[in-house]
C-alpha cells in the first residue's frame, strides 16, 4: 500500500466546528479532482462537541486505495492544521508525528510565539502562520453538513479559505487551482496563499534543495 498522507485539523467545538470540517472536506475534494483516493471524517471520540472544546477533524490522501478503513484516528499526522491559535497551549498537537511534519496555525502572532508553545518542534520541517481571522474576519457557524447531512452553507466561506491557501502553499498534496474550484471565498483563499508566513525549521529547506 502506498503511503497514506494523514492531515489532522484541530478546531474548537461548535463555534469553529464548521471551519475545521471545511478544511478537511475541501482538501480531500481537491485531491479527489486529481484522481487521488481520499477520506475525510470527524473524530468520533471528540463528539458530541461542546462550545470551545478542542476537537479533531481528519483527512487522508493517498495515490492508491486507502486500506485502513477501520482506523478511525490519524495515528501519524503529516500536516497539522490549527484553526484556533490558543489550542497550541492546550494540546500536544504533534503527537504521533514522524519527522519532517508541517504545522499550519491560524494566528496573528509571530512564528516565535507559536514555537514557544510547541515543545516537540524538532519534529517539524515547516511552520506556517497565516492570519486567517484577519483575512476572512468571520467564522461560519452552521450544522447542515454534520453527520452526513447535506452542506447547504457551502465549503470555505469563512476562515477555512485562507487556511486552505496556506496549506496549499507548503504541500503538493493539493493544488491551489483545484481548491479555488471548491471554496466559496476564492479571494480569501488566494490571500491566505500569498500572506502565509512560511518558516523552515530543522534544516527543512536545505534537505529539499539537496
Amino acid at each position: 500500500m502506498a503511503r497514506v498522507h494523514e492531515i489532522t485539523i484541530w478546531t474548537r467545538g461548535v463555534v469553529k466546528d464548521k471551519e475545521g470540517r471545511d478544511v478537511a472536506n475541501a482538501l480531500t475534494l481537491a485531491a479527489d479532482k486529481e484522481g487521488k483516493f481520499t477520506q475525510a471524517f470527524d473524530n468520533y471520540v471528540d463528539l458530541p462537541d461542546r462550545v470551545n472544546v478542542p476537537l479533531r477533524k481528519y483527512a487522508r490522501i493517498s495515490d492508491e486505495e486507502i486500506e485502513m478503513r477501520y482506523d478511525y484516528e490519524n495515528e501519524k499526522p503529516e500536516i497539522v492544521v490549527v484553526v484556533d491559535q490558543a489550542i497550541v497551549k492546550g494540546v500536544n498537537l504533534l503527537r504521533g508525528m514522524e519527522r519532517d511534519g508541517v504545522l499550519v496555525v491560524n494566528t496573528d502572532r509571530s512564528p516565535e510565539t507559536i514555537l514557544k508553545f510547541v515543545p516537540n518542534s524538532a519534529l517539524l520541517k515547516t511552520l506556517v502562520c497565516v492570519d486567517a481571522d484577519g483575512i476572512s474576519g468571520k467564522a461560519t457557524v452552521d450544522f447542515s453538513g454534520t453527520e452526513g447531512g447535506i452542506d447547504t452553507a457551502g465549503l470555505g466561506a469563512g476562515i477555512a479559505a485562507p487556511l486552505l491557501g496556506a496549506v496549499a502553499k507548503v504541500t503538493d498534496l493539493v493544488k491551489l487551482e483545484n481548491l479555488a474550484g471548491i471554496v466559496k471565498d476564492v479571494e480569501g483563499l488566494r490571500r491566505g496563499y500569498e500572506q502565509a508566513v512560511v518558516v523552515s525549521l530543522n534544516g527543512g529547506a536545505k534537505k529539499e534543495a539537496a
Partner: protein
Amino acid sequence: MFTIPKEREVPFAGITPAPVNEQPMMITGNWRTYRPVINHEECNLCMNCVVFCPDACWQLNEAGDEVVWNWKYCKGCLICVNECTHGALTKEHELDFEDGVVRLEKLF
C-alpha cells in the same frame, strides 16, 4: 461461599476516584481562548465572580483577603468579567501568558 480469584479483582469500568477538591482527570483549561485577569487593587471582594462562576474557579483564599483564580478548570466563558461590579476583571488572550499550559495527553 465463593472467592474471587486475585487476577479478577479489577475495578469496574468508568470508576474514577472521588474528587475532594479537584478532579485531575477532567481538566478543562484547554477550552480557554481568553482568560479573566484580576486587578486586586480594584477588587472590593463583592464575590460576584465566586457566585457566578459555573465551574467554581474563583475562590476566596484562606486569609479571606483575595479571590484566587483556578487556571486548570477555567473554560474562559468570561461570565465573571461580565458580572464584575468594579471592573477589576479584564479579558486577556491566552497566548499573552506563558503559564497555564494544559497539555493533556488524552482528551476525554
